[in-house]
């Protein structure tokens, strides 16, 4: 109750300063708490929702509209969804995404789901941005992505026939600024929750796995075989990532410093965030630079393809032998298990589609 009262007063003060109408003053968006999946509720900590950007019906709807609208780009040709496509679990099927001038980036577009459970709030493959709201600032002005300026974005949105009204409904002001744009997008992105895979149903007692998938799960959890669980979670951590940064032995010579470029610490060179293993059926290609086009290539990398380097993670075993040397059956089983973490309902959820 106290928080709500303060919120109303805050709105009143802002509107008083900007000389807007009384109708705008009293507008309050409708709360829309995240629909937390049962497995998440039972097993892991609550999602991160900034106190100054609560989820609302109007904020989420606005964020969705902005996410799919090319108005954010300099030449009105590119939306967030162009590189974060719903059918690819909000990633890009291309290895590198193309910006408005046809220039390619140098990393694979990260899939977007379960972002509110990134507890450290470090975003991008190299963790260079803190908070989902701040993440949304970057692509708009990135010269090889949307190549815009926020001043132009704000002007275009303000001049549109419908956005001022939508911002007023979402935030109680029709004066549009970049902070509100990113807040709205972040609200929409937090609704992108994926927790309805075959393996989720198995854990909930609502489905069964094949013997091959169960064998694959054992390979995943066996420290003497796949040993995937230390970085990619387990049945009690349904995120299937630790959201931590590791050098997973991709290169003997590190050219993309990853986290090392962000922290300036050579010990972080070549470290990238562990991606979630959910929705791998839709998120190829794989790794931070999209170098692997198939899951077989990924598994072969950990089995036989590890490259040693000074910052390689200690959890990368048998590096001098190239990896853990899974049998062909173990590889096939592991792939079957990994695909059981994909969530068809996530990529077809109408709430997440541009409709």
């Amino acid at each position: 109750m106290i928080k709500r009262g303060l919120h109303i007063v805050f709105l009143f003060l802002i509107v008083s300063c900007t000389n807007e109408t009384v109708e705008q003053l009293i507008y309050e968006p409708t709360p829309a708490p995240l629909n937390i999946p049962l497995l998440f509720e039972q097993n892991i900590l609550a999602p991160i929702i900034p106190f100054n950007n609560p989820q609302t019906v109007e904020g989420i709807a606005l964020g969705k509209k902005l996410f799919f609208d090319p108005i954010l780009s300099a030449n009105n040709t590119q939306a967030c969804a162009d590189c974060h496509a719903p059918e690819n679990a909000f990633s890009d099927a291309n290895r590198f995404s193309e910006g408005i001038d046809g220039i390619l980036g140098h990393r694979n577009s990260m899939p977007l789901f379960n972002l509110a459970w990134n507890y450290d709030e470090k975003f991008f493959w190299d963790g260079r941005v803190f908070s989902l709201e701040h993440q949304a600032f970057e692509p708009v002005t990135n010269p090889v992505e949307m190549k815009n300026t926020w001043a132009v974005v704000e002007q275009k949105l303000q001049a549109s026939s419908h956005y001022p009204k939508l911002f007023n409904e979402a935030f109680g002001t029709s004066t549009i600024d970049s902070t509100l744009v990113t807040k709205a997008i972040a609200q929409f992105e937090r609704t992108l929750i994926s927790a309805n895979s075959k393996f989720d149903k198995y854990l909930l007692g609502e489905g069964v796995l094949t013997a091959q998938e169960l064998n694959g799960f054992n390979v995943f959890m066996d420290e003497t075989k796949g040993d995937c669980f230390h970085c990619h979670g387990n049945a009690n951590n349904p995120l299937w990532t630790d959201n931590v940064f590791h050098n997973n032995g991709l290169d003997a010579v590190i050219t993309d410093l990853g986290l090392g470029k962000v922290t300036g610490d050579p010990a972080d060179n070549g470290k990238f965030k562990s991606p979630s293993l959910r929705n791998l059926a839709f998120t190829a290609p794989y790794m931070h630079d999209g170098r692997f086009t198939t899951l077989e290539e990924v598994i072969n990398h950990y089995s036989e393809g590890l490259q040693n380097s000074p910052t390689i993670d200690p959890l990368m075993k048998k590096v001098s032998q190239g990896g853990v040397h899974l049998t062909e059956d173990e590889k096939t089983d592991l792939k079957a298990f990994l695909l059981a973490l994909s969530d068809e309902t996530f990529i077809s959820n109408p709430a997440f589609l541009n409709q």
Partner: protein
Amino acid sequence: MAVSFFMITLMACQSNDQAIKSEATISFNFSHNWDGTIVTNTDFNNIQYTNVNGDILSIERLRYLISKITFYKSNGEEIVLDGYNLVDVTNGTQLSFSSNALVPTGNYSNVSFLFGFDNEDNISGAYPDLNSASWNVPEMLGGGYHFMQLEGKFINDQSEEIGYAYHAIRAVDNSNPDNLIFQDTFIEVHLGSVMISNDTSFNVEMNVAEWFKNPNTWDLNVLYNSLMPNFNAQVMMYENGQNAFSLESVTP
């Protein structure tokens, strides 16, 4: 002059508090060393430590769990503080732990904590914060949680730089998956007697070198990874860990 007045006021308040204190807050602070040389996360990632076996090694990651802080009265009464703490040296977080519960002031014949979880608390999936930290142990090894993750690199007998993962869990013989055989490897750390008259901090040291030292001289060339399913390695960790912790000081 203002500073002096402030100090006098503080002292007066403290004096009043001390006079009426019947219960105290308790905190535990954890610091780390390698045979007396301070270890913090700023010392990580450099191959600079030599264990008793002569292996030269680095620390890249160190997290461990402590639980069941217990105060013992001479009359046999025990006060167990709820909660546990995942000390994360890597990130420099949770190096201190304060219980929500208050402890009655008075004399205690012993204070202890557990390294890891005892079997009563070592319940698979029971703790959302530990699940979120991917601290779980696979069910094929009995489930529950890790007690410690100590990782880094060492120089092996072939002069190669090799990763090691010294992960402590409850020892399990899983040679027959249908009949897992366990041995308890949580460690009771006894800190000795203490008089609690006010809010109190226990400053506890872990000597990381002890994990490689006594009574088992740890040869990283032999035991460097896949140690979780290694029953004998887990028992050796338990034995070596007996002297890893010590009470540096108690500060009221």
